[in-house]
């Protein structure tokens, strides 16, 4: 099983380089290659998740070099949880883009860049080496710079340049942090760093410095509030699949997963760091909610809503109890599904204005919005409830109060955004001349995501998914026990 981990990176890379070879000859082949590549890795990540859900740790040594010399790929429950979410969302988005992307020229570039993003994201999730993590982070980021500029409009170039500059500076901070860390512990393996830090007597100031660098770097990728300004701009002018990927996958994987993995498992969570996380989380929640109110563009509104919801996830990470982490990881799942669903709805309406009030669009958008607002039967309700209860349990009454208030805010601005779609009496917009109605794949994609976003509360009942979630939480709770798990599986 461990030998299969490498194919999570190899398959999308191979697809990314095969697609340009068929670019002009066979357009359908590009779609088929992309779809097949994502399908393979989704199946693979589900298989790996089923295998590791009981707390196993899979290790693969690249090139058969043993760990202090070579790079290791480590998959535990946390990686598998994120792998399943990101690859499934990507599968649905590729399915959707088969008909969505037709209005652009050079569609093969879109598919090729998507596959690059997938390989970068999977690489970040499976790697056990901190410099390798930086390399995959850059691969995913560079592909996304190009994707944000894909609209070829004035505004999209501006937004892409803004994001590219900010994100590159953030990556440079991450690289500086890695360099400082390497000069301190003389190893790049994350498990090795964790055990070296526990062995050292005094590691306070260096770790504080590196933590701040990582908070800046990964915090920008996660769009936490002082570093958030790229996100609404970048989302407002690009093909609708790109914000769906960015909001559904990238800010979770490149920001939340990396910070969680490094702060919890490599450094061991310090109380001071968790206070910083709580402060950033509250700022993100409140400012994202307030800014979303003033928006007239629905894409920017959804962008600010993403910032607000990322605040909830970091709130859970900052509280750091077992219940809070269950809520936080579950909220990652809910927000990935619902927010990508809403962006796909936006793309659907922009393409087919006559579809806005049809049930297939209106009800799926309602399901997504309900899940993000936290209306009871949906998954988002349970995750927010768990986070708020965990805050009260840990004694943070004020934080729980803020979370509730922001949740009410969320309902208010989503209600404002959805009212014209659902309740206005006006005539439905005219279909574009020559439009042939909604393609099957787009409708299927949004319905699939809507069903999951409503029914994802099932994860909390005892079953395989729940075992995976609990395993992921145990990895985070275990702290630097990650080192012994990753090292122990080697022997």
């Amino acid at each position, binding site marked *: 099983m461990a*030998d299969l981990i*490498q194919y999570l990176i*190899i398959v999308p*890379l*191979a697809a990314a*380089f*095969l697609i*340009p*070879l068929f*670019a*002009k000859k066979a357009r359908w082949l590009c779609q088929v290659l992309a779809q097949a590549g994502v399908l393979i890795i989704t199946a693979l990540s589900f298989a790996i998740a089923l295998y590791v859900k009981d707390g196993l740790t899979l290790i693969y040594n*690249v*090139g*058969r070099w043993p760990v202090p010399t070579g790079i290791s790929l480590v998959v535990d429950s946390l990686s598998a949880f994120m792998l399943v979410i990101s690859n499934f969302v990507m599968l649905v988005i590729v399915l959707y883009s088969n008909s969505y992307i037709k209005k652009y*020229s*050079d569609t093969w570039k879109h598919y090729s860049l998507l596959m690059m993003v997938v390989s970068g994201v999977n690489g970040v999730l499976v790697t056990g080496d901190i410099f390798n993590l930086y390399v995959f982070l850059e691969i995913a980021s560079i592909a996304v710079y190009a994707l944000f500029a894909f609209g070829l409009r004035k505004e999209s170039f501006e937004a892409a340049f803004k994001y590219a500059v900010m994100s590159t500076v953030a990556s440079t901070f991450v690289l500086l942090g890695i360099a400082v860390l390497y000069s301190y512990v003389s190893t790049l393996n994350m498990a090795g760093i964790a055990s070296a830090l526990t062995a050292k007597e005094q590691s306070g100031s260096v770790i504080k410095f590196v933590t701040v660098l990582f908070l800046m770097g990964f915090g920008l990728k996660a769009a936490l509030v002082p570093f958030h300004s790229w996100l609404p701009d970048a989302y407002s002018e690009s093909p609708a699949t790109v914000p769906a990927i960015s909001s559904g996958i990238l800010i979770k994987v490149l920001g939340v997963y990396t910070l969680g993995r490094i702060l919890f498992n490599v450094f061991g969570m310090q109380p001071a760091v968790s206070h910083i996380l709580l402060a950033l989380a509250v700022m993100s929640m409140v400012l994202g909610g307030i800014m979303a109110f003033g928006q007239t563009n629905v894409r920017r509104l959804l962008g600010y809503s993403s910032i607000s919801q990322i605040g909830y996830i970091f709130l859970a990470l900052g509280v750091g109890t077992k219940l809070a982490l269950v809520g936080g990881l579950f909220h990652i799942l809910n927000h990935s599904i619902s927010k990508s669903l809403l962006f796909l709805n936006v793309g659907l309406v922009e393409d087919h204005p006559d579809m806005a009030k049809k049930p297939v669009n209106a009800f799926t958008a309602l399901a997504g919005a309900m899940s993000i607002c936290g209306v009871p039967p949906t998954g988002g309700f349970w995750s927010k409830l768990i986070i708020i209860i965990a805050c009260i349990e840990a004694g943070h009454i004020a934080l729980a109060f803020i979370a509730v208030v922001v949740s009410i805010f969320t309902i208010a601005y989503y209600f404002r955004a959805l009212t014209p779609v659902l309740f206005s009496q006006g005539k439905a917009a005219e279909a574009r001349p020559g439009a042939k109605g909604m393609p099957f794949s787009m409708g299927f994609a949004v319905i699939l995501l809507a069903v999951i976003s409503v029914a994802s509360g099932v994860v909390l009942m005892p079953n395989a998914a729940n075992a995976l979630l609990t395993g992921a939480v145990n990895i985070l709770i275990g702290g630097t026990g990650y080192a012994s798990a990753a090292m122990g599986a080697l022997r």
Partner: protein
Amino acid sequence: MIQKGMSVIVKTVTKITLGFILLYAVYISLNGHTGPGGGFAGGVIVALSFVHIMLVFGKEMALKRLRSYVLRGLTCAGALIFLYAATVKFSGGCVPFGAFLEKSVSCRLFNSEITLPFCEMLIIGAGLFAIFVALVLLSKSDRYDSE
């Protein structure tokens, strides 16, 4: 303009030296395993030789020979061979034809010492020249890529 590109002296010298430049690029990229050099440096020399052709013979002449899909194909083929060779090495022969490549003596040429620098030269050479072409032509016309 009657004559494209530079004067006839420069063109003749370029024709003579071009083969040597490419040979030097191959030497550099194969030398990289034990000495200074490597696929990246060799690839940069290949790309510079293409740029050289473009400057001397004019843009149209160079682009007639090296269309964008040729460059794209070379880059992607190089990357794919690179990926395949790396996969053979990583998985210890657990890919199609992998065992054959690992074991047989006659296929030692497909070893990382020869293949990987050569592929890297291909990728970097074609890729950097493609980027150069893209940056040069970007301001002239949007539709270079869709011939």
